[in-house]
């Protein structure tokens, strides 16, 4: 079976899953449904020739589900019934549908699926084995050609963790007594 057919199937599955995730009332089911969508994305990466990404996405999905369930499931396990504004929803759907229709013209100019424009990466593919000694070219790109990008990633991750700890800590800094 060609890759396209598999991808149609997986993408349709993901779209249905995400709509279900947004519309289910029970929040635990909702979080688990988004986990299913993420695992579908991992499968799609596997079909698109990106096994590293599939592994990372798999681990990300599990961690994300653990964080979200730990954070929210206990607080709102009951069925939630928030009222919604029907006119607002209709207006949003109409606007998004018009954006979708307009985007068809934009997507026509992109290179068609399966024929990418490879310019910079041509050199990576040809030279990476000799220049970096890495067998996996993605590793060569991350840790050698674009290492500052990775440094920035680590900085962002560190900042996010720091922010999480700062927000969640129980006690603030003790005020120094006036002497």
């Amino acid at each position: 079976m060609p890759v396209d057919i598999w991808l149609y199937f997986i993408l349709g599955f993901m779209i249905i899953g995400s709509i279900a995730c947004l519309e289910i009332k029970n929040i635990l089911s909702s979080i688990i449904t988004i986990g299913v969508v993420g695992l579908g994305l991992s499968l799609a990466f596997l079909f698109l020739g990106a096994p590293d990404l599939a592994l990372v996405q798999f681990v990300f999905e599990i961690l994300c589900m653990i964080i979200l369930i730990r954070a929210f499931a206990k607080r709102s396990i009951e069925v939630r019934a928030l009222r919604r504004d029907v006119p607002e929803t209709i207006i949003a759907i109409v606007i998004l549908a018009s954006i979708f229709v307009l985007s068809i013209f934009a997507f026509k100019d992109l290179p068609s699926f399966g024929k990418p424009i490879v310019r910079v990466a041509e050199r990576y593919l040809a030279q990476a084995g000799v220049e970096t000694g890495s067998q996996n070219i993605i590793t060569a790109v991350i840790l050698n050609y674009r290492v500052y990008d990775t440094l920035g990633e680590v900085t962002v991750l560190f900042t996010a963790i720091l922010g999480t700890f700062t927000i969640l800590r129980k006690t603030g800094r003790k005020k120094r007594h006036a002497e």
Partner: protein
Amino acid sequence: MILYLMCFFLFLVGVYGAITKRDLIKIILAIGIMGYSVNLFLVLLAYRTGALVPILKKGLDIPASMMVDPLPQAIVLTSIVIELGITALMAALAIRIYQKYDTFDITKIRRLQG
């Protein structure tokens, strides 16, 4: 092109959730969906029909035109990890808001000024 359109539709589903839902948790999940679709779109752009994984093998000389584009994959690898940090940060903020206001409903969180 239909694949790109489906991917964009997934993004629009995420946008729909982020602008119409009143539940903070649903908004976090919707932003996660938008992230999924963007990652998938970048990797879709990189695919080459019938190409192999960009991993070199000793003794097996694969020409460069038979591998998928490694650059978007490297960028998406970065993006996925950052998404995890962002999700954790948003969850922490939502927990704090819940402790202060006893609700996840964004229309009832009105005391934000001053």
